[in-house]
């Protein structure tokens, strides 16, 4: 009988501990900052973008590089033009659209070793 009570107590304590951990979670884990700066919706539903944006970018990259197709729908420049923070003028940085999510998911990206993280400025100073 004593053993049963002890077992029950351990279970209760464990459950309480898990619940407490669950409550604390948002505080302990830094969630990505997803600030949509421009436009009402993206080129595809959010779920698809989250799962497949890298495939779209890789496909468009080859189309642009090798065939000279410069449609903006799936281009990296298109992403940056909408998603760059107006404060930092970039998709990188702590709360940057690309950087914060990639930091959260622990997925490194090489795009910005070469590509500019800032939207294009046309003559006149305004982004297109």
């Amino acid at each position, binding site marked *: 009988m004593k053993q049963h009570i002890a077992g029950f107590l351990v279970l209760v304590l464990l459950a309480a501990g898990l619940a407490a951990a669950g409550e604390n979670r948002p505080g302990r884990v830094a969630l990505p900052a997803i600030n949509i700066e421009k436009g009402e919706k993206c080129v595809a539903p959010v779920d698809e973008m989250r799962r497949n944006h890298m495939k779209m970018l890789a496909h468009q*990259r080859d*189309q642009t*590089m*090798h*065939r*000279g*197709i*410069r*449609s*903006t729908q799936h281009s990296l*420049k298109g992403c*940056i033009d909408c998603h760059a923070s107006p404060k930092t003028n970039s998709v990188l940085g702590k709360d940057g659209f690309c950087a914060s999510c990639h930091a959260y998911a622990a997925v490194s990206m090489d795009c910005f*070793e*070469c*590509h*500019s993280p*800032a*939207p*294009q400025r046309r003559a006149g100073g305004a982004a297109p």
Partner: protein
Amino acid sequence: MSPDRRQILGWGVAAAAGAALAPGIRLIELVQARSPEEAAAALHRWGLLIDTVKCVDCDVCVTACHAENGVTGHARPETDAQWIRKVNLRDKKSGHAQTLPLMCQHCEHPPCVDVCPTGASFKRADGIVLVDKHICIGCRYCVMACPYGARSFIHETLSGQKPDVPRGKGTVESCTLCVHRIDRDETPACVEACARDGGKAMAFGDLNDRDGAIHRRLRAEASSQVRPDLALNTAVRYQGL
């Protein structure tokens, strides 16, 4: 790459357009602004014609190129990237001096493409020779293969690149004929600058367009390639060399 159906249809249309109704009148103009969704076509071959007699002792083409493409250096001439440079020639006996801009010659048979082990160095359908930096491993075989010394290697981490011109450490690069400008129907930055501030020595155009200014001049006037003995059929031609 085998030509797809659309491309073959395109050639057919082009052939029909090429058959003139009357001299100078065509059903469809050969040189038309390409929409962003349309692929570069083998119908065109973009090139330059440079008149060395008009080329004066200035470097506006170099400055304009490097400003347009965000090519910056570290004041280390031996390793800094150089997409275009001025070459000064002087005949030792007569003392006759010439100056000319030299950049990637956009060969029809580019040695840089032959030697590239990954396929990063390639020629686009419209004849522009480019480096796909996504697959460039930085081996620099192309730097050694190019007889014009047109390729540069990026040795150091970069920042502040132009959105249209991605550049990064560990890859090779060279003149792109301002491909991002050509794709929106503009002329290369060097040609524009030379016409504005230089000696009006550079002309850009389609070497395949029989009615184009470049084709007309190449037909009527003497011109030469640099190192014609290599039979690379360059798209950059010179006059007065």
